[in-house]
């Protein structure tokens, strides 16, 4: 590990995924400063366990470490949002005001969409980010998050539903 060659190899394999790493961290912790620190910490952790990497798919590997690092941080901060997922039932009232046109019109405002996504519980938010922003397949997301593919699909369905509700109630 201490060989300079290993470091070069590490950087060539994983620094190209810095944008994905930062984007995920930023969406998980929701502020620039902590996201930067956590991404750096994740890269150092990754480097220390690089001998377990064995040339696997670099993006999935570094994103898994970023995710773990961020979750540890969120838990340490006793972040409320980890608990929010259990409150879901209280919001599931019927809503008939969601015409596609209305949603398109409103979500055209990127800031509105950003705000709504930030308000989603982290379990839904991360799946939406990995799917819509990172373009990952259900299988890749399932491996990364450690849940079955069916759960990825149902979280996406519920996540989109909640996002929709946020957007139609905004404005």
């Amino acid at each position, binding site marked *: 590990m201490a060989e300079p060659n290993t470091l070069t190899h590490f950087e060539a394999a994983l620094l190209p995924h810095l944008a994905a790493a*930062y984007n995920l961290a930023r969406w998980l912790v929701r502020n620039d400063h902590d996201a930067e620190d956590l991404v750096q910490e994740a890269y150092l952790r990754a480097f*220390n366990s690089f001998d377990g990497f064995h040339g696997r798919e670099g993006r999935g590997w570094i994103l898994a470490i970023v995710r773990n690092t961020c979750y540890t941080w969120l838990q340490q901060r006793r972040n409320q949002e980890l608990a929010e997922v259990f409150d879901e039932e209280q919001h599931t009232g019927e809503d008939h005001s969601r015409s596609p046109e209305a949603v398109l019109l409103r979500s055209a405002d*990127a800031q509105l969409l950003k705000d709504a996504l930030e308000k989603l519980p982290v379990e839904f938010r991360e799946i939406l980010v990995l799917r819509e922003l990172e373009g990952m397949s259900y299988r*890749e997301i399932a491996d990364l998050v450690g849940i079955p593919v069916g759960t990825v*699909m149902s979280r996406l*369905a519920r996540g989109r539903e909640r996002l929709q509700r946020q957007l139609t109630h905004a404005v």
Partner: protein
Amino acid sequence: MSCKEYDTLMDGYLDGELDLLSTLRVEAHLPECANCAQTYESHRALRSSMSSGKLYFKPPNKLAERIHVALHQANNVERRASPSVRRVLKPIPWGIWWPWLSLAASAVLVSMIAWRFGSGIFRPSAEDLLAQEVLSSHVRSLMADHLTDVPSSDQHTVKPWFNGKLDFSPLVKDLSGDGFPLVGGRLDYLQERPVVALVYQRRKHLINLFVWPSAEESRQKTLTRQGYNLFHWTQSHMTYWVTSDLNQTELQEFVRLVQGHQGR
């Protein structure tokens, strides 16, 4: 099946992740159920507004440099550290790993030397070398801030720009209708000849499409190098290389679109 079950399947359908049977079921159900059709439409609208790229947080420029420095510092500390510091940094039983790691490091070194000097031990194939050349060109185009010579999303601006610079005329297509907007074109140099590099984009992922004439015929090949996906094929006496950090499924979609246009 109840509508509630379709509610979840709908998203799998939208994402193209369902098996054939479930796909057919959803397709049969949608025209019959106004409620589900509305959910589908609204999720589809949501999906397209999310994939505009506006939600993607770009890392600040200094972050890569900062991590680079931190890694080098950690690496140096590691090499000089007392055993106690080393344990804090790396909770791995070093006695066990050291011989293997140095062996692995030597293997990396040997293969790098073999690569450099073509000593014949691991001589890479011509195609491997070309793939490496294509990839280097892609990475360089992103790093050196020389992505395009002619930055334009208009195919009628990009195509004429190449006139007089090349001994062939590339077909330039704007694929923004298919979600791959044209970013521009660039003159590049591969296999000891000038080639066309067309740059497309999906979300924040840039795609380089390299084109030059070729007498050889080869079927489509897919490669992965250092986290990048590469596609290669020849068609109508032209060689095509596509490379990007975009995932393989979407890049394959891009390849199909390019192949479709060239065939016309």
